[in-house]
C-alpha cells in the first residue's frame, strides 16, 4: 500500500517553480533517501508531505488523505506523519520530557501515566534519560536532535519525515543521530523519507534513493542499483562521483 503518492505535482513560490512534475510513490514501511544539490527542492518536497507547504496542482495522497483538497484537515495527517527538522525546533519553553509528552497529551489525549512511560522509554532509546528535565538550550545539537526524534516517535507515527537532520550538527554528533535513525529503519515498520547528504546512511538502510535537481526527480532507483550500478542520469552520476570522491 502506498503511504505517499505524488502525481504530476507542481509547486510554486511566487514565480519560482520549486517542484516540477513530481511523480513519486513510497510504499508503507519503505525507507527512501532523497539526495541532490542544495536548492534542488528536496526540503520543499518532503515539506509538502505533511502540508507545511501547499501544492499548486497535481495530486498528493498521504496515508489516504488528499493534500490537494482544501477540505482535508492537516492535523489528522500530522498525527500519523511526524517530522524531524534540520534545526530541531524543540519547544524552547519546555523541558525535554515535556517536549515529548505535550503532543500525545493534547492531541492524542493519551493517559498521563502511559504517556510518561512511553516518553521515558523513548528517552532511554535515544540515550537521553539523564537529560529529561533539562531545557533544549542546555543540550548539545546532537542531543537536541535525538530528543526531537523521540518527540516525533512519541506520536507513534506511521511515517517519519527527516529534513536534513544532521546538516546543522558538529561532525562528532552526527554518528549518534544516524545510529538512532538506523535503529528505527531496521526495527520498525515505519515509513521513512529522509533528505540527507549522508551517503553511508543511504547505502546502509535505504530501500530507495531519489535524486533531485532543479525541482525535478531525475533518478529513482533501489539503493543497490544506485550505489553499485551506475545512475542512468548524467547529473546524478556526477553528483554521486563528487560525493564519493571525498
Amino acid at each position: 500500500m502506498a503511504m505517499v503518492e505524488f502525481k504530476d505535482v507542481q509547486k510554486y513560490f511566487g514565480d519560482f517553480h520549486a517542484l516540477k512534475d513530481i511523480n513519486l510513490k513510497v510504499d508503507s514501511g519503505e525507507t527512501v533517501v532523497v539526495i541532490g544539490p542544495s536548492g534542488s527542492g528536496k526540503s520543499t518536497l518532503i515539506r509538502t508531505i505533511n502540508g507545511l507547504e501547499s501544492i499548486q496542482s497535481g495530486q498528493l495522497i498521504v496515508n489516504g488523505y488528499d493534500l490537494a483538497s482544501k477540505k482535508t484537515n492537516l492535523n489528522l495527517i500530522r498525527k500519523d506523519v511526524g517530522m524531524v527538522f534540520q534545526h530541531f525546533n524543540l519547544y524552547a519553553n519546555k523541558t525535554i520530557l515535556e517536549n515529548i509528552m505535550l503532543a500525545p497529551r493534547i492531541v492524542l489525549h493519551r493517559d498521563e501515566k502511559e504517556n510518561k512511560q512511553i516518553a521515558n522509554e523513548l528517552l532511554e532509546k535515544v540515550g537521553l534519560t539523564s537529560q529529561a528535565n533539562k531545557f533544549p538550550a542546555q543540550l548539545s545539537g546532537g542531543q537536541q536532535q535525538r530528543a526531537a526524534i523521540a518527540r516525533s516517535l512519541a506520536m507513534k507515527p506511521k511515517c517519519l519525515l527527516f529534513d536534513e537532520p544532521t546538516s546543522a550538527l558538529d561532525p562528532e554528533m552526527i554518528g549518534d543521530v544516524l545510529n538512532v535513525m538506523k535503529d528505527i529503519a531496521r526495527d520498525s515498520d515505519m515509513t521513512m523519507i529522509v533528505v540527507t547528504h549522508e551517503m553511508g546512511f543511504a547505502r546502509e538502510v535505504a530501500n530507495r534513493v531519489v535524486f533531485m535537481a532543479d525541482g525535478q526527480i531525475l533518478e529513482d532507483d533501489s539503493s543497490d542499483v544506485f550505489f553499485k550500478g551506475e545512475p542512468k542520469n548524467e547529473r546524478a552520476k556526477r553528483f554521486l562521483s563528487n560525493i564519493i570522491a571525498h
Partner: protein
Amino acid sequence: MIEIFQNYGDALLRGFGETILCSIIALIFALIIGSGFAILESTPIRWLRIIARAYIELFRNIPLLVITMFFYVVIPMYVLDISGFVAGTIGLILYSSAFIAETVRAGIQSVDTGQMEGARANGLTFWQAMRYIILPQAFRYVLPPLGNQFINLVKNSSVLAFVAGFDLMYQGNVIASDSLQSMSTYMCVGVLYLIITLPLSYYMRYLEHRLS
C-alpha cells in the same frame, strides 16, 4: 502638602481608590483584548488579520481623550446612559489594548518560526501551538515593553478627570481650586500616582528577572 492631606485627605483617598479601580479593570481587559487582537493578527486567516489591523490602527491613532469623550457624550445621547467613570474606563481599555496588541504581536513575531512549525508538524492546532508554545515565549520577550504599557495605562487613567470620573486627578483639580494651593495639591497628586506606578514598575522588573 501636609496641610492638603489634613484638610482634603478623604477626597484624595477616594480619588486614589477610583484611579486604582479604573486601572485594574482597564489593565485586565486591555491585556485580554490586546492579546486577543495580537493573536488574530498572527493567524494565517487573512480577514481575521484585517479586522485586527483595523482595530489596532483605529484606537492607536485617535487621542485617548477623543475616544473617552465619544463614550461620555455620544453613547449616553443615543444608546445607554453611562457614568463618567465607565466612559473613561472603556476609553482607556480600547486605547491601551491597541498598544498592548502591538507589543504582544511584536513578541509573537520574535519567537522563532521553527517553534510554530515544530508544533504544527507535531500535530498541534494553530491555537494549541499559540497557547502552549508561542505565547509563553512571546510574553517573556515583551515583559519590559508591557511594563511600560501598564505604567502608561495608570497615568492615562487621569483622563477620567475630564469626564467627571472622580479619580485622583479629578479630586486634585477640585481641591486645587478650593484651597487655592495648586502647587501643593498637584504635588500630593503626583506622589499618590507614584505610589501606584513605582511598585508596578518594580514588580514588572522582578517578573522579568525571575523569568529570564
